[in-house]
């Protein structure tokens, strides 16, 4: 059996290696209103770390501070050993940042964008540079479009290009702000293949996402709500906390079932999910308590099935934010 989640993978991280990112009390306010408050967390070298939360939770603000494009109002973070509050330029040669908005030049071609970023990072023209571009073309399947203006690419291809430009100088750390937002599923898979290759090479990746299902791919996640961290752990560990409490009930009349279940003291949260009802109990149980089932049936709706659910990160999030 492989060890606890978070340490599996093709290489293990030496326990005393300095973390790639050490955030301590990171804070940022805009016109007096805090967007991010007192964030403290570590990201280990070679880790895939997720910043998870809805819009307005502070993901973009946090990433911008770590990328050195936004100064913290308070606190600090050491990114690859450099302080973002005192010396934000120091780590830029070794990181790559992909902002939420497409940050490349729509009026330059795919190849011109790649060349530009190669030049910017001082990669001299020659065999090494060509080899890297070739490799990126292979991952991204963008070579047939090398002469196309970047603005004319589909959303998924734009993101693949952005990732390619970010990787051309072989950074140690990738900071990605919602890299797969709105991207078609096939391009999303391509993007993840690239990311997984990078992880295999030991690159550290910190990404933000509001897709809770995507967060489940990460080694560890920090759930952000209103600028604060409400939980930080491996997804499985977080889900284990809710293990044995989530059930899915299919009934002839889901709305009647919903109303009844909500009134039960055993239930903590009840939500309609299409034609079924998802229930979170206050106490873990190996099966849905008989009283609850009877109550639903006597409310006049036949119960078609009851199934224990593996709690999703969304359930965890709702639990922690009191939703």
């Amino acid at each position, binding site marked *: 059996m492989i060890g606890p989640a978070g340490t599996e993978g093709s290489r293990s991280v030496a326990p005393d290696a300095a973390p790639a990112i050490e955030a301590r009390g990171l804070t940022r306010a805009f016109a007096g209103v805090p967007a991010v408050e007192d964030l403290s967390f570590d990201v280990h070298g070679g880790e895939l770390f997720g910043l998870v939360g809805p819009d*307005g939770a502070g993901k973009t603000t946090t990433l911008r501070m770590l990328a050195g494009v936004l100064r913290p109002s308070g606190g600090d973070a050491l990114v690859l050993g450099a302080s973002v509050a005192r010396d934000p330029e120091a780590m830029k040669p070794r990181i790559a940042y992909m902002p939420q908005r497409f940050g490349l030049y729509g009026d330059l071609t795919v190849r011109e964008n790649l060349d530009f970023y190669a030049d910017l990072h001082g990669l001299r023209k020659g065999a090494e540079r060509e080899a890297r571009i070739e490799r990126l073309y292979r991952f991204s399947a963008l070579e047939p479009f090398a002469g196309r203006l970047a603005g004319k690419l589909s959303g998924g291809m734009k993101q693949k290009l952005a990732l390619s430009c970010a990787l051309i100088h072989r950074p140690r750390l990738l900071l990605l702000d919602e890299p797969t937002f709105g991207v078609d599923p096939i391009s999303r898979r391509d993007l993840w293949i690239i990311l997984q290759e990078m992880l295999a090479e030991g690159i550290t990746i910190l990404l933000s996402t509001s897709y809770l299902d995507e967060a489940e791919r990460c080694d560890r996640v920090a759930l952000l709500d209103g600028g604060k961290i409400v939980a930080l752990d491996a997804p499985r560990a977080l889900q284990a906390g809710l293990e044995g409490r989530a059930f899915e009930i299919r009934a002839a009349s889901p709305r009647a079932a919903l109303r009844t279940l909500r009134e039960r003291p055993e239930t903590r949260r009840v939500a309609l999910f299409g034609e079924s009802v998802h229930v979170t109990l206050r106490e873990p149980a190996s099966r849905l308590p008989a009283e609850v089932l009877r109550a639903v049936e006597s409310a006049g709706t036949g119960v078609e099935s009851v199934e224990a659910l593996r709690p999703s990160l969304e359930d965890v999030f709702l639990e922690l934010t009191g939703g």
Partner: protein
Amino acid sequence: MADAAASAPPFAEGGEAVIVADGLTRRFGDFVAVDDLSFAVEAGEILGFLGPNGAGKTTAIRMLIGSLPPTSGTARVAGHDVAVEPYAVRRAIGYMSQLFSLYGDLTVRENLDLFAGLYDLSGERRSGRIRWALANAELEGREEQLTAMLPLGLKQRLALGSAILHEPAVLFLDEPTSGVDPAARRAFWELISDLAAGGTTILVSTHYMEEAEHCHRVALMNRGRLIAIDAPSALKASLERPILEVRTSDPSRAAAILDGLEELEDATMFGRTVHVVVSDEAVARERIAAALEREGVELGEVRRVRPTLEDVFVSLVRKSGGVVAG
């Protein structure tokens, strides 16, 4: 949550479905944004338009609400032809756009007054509906607040209330929960479900594959075409194959090894695990264990996972030979 059932909207009489599209097509020059779209939505149904950005969802909706004429094909909404009677269509429907269409520099009350006026509401009905919208968004007592200052979840509910002040028979929602936190999202979907139970027909477009679970039926769109339309559970079942999540000591090697196995349909990495699509679960488990042991990769836990709509989407697109290219 205010009870929407008390004000159930009237719905289409007769046998015709509330929304009917037949060969709906829209071109922009050489580019075909919507290609031969045909489907029907019954009263009280929630239909989800699912697909990535650029699939044509927004263009399709614009045609259905009568604000963009089709290049060819027809569509009827609430009994009116969208090309011939666009104004009649717009009077009969509610529309909530991705950007919520509220004026940030107006107060909550001012926005509601504006929309009430736009929909020609007056008198008792007007004040009653505005009261309902405020209660629904839990904004009673906050009428004088500037809309821009509201948190996203409340803005969304206010936008929805504004869109249905006139109790339309049909409601079109374009990416209504984009970026909203999970709690607000769930509350929103409950409201939608209430409305549908009251007879309102609802068409939602979204790129969040998992949101489709809330719909009665889902229409998957890619590159302007409809690639499938069915209930979410049926779509997932159609995938037919179980999916196993395999944990190993060397995920990338394991993925390469398993992808080469003939008995397995597909093996891709998912985080640090490998997701494998199999035909026979028992046989597959055996094969996986054997192959990995042969290559010296340590095998951890193997468990069955539910296919997601994304899996369905990718599989359908691959099956139809199509590629989502730029």
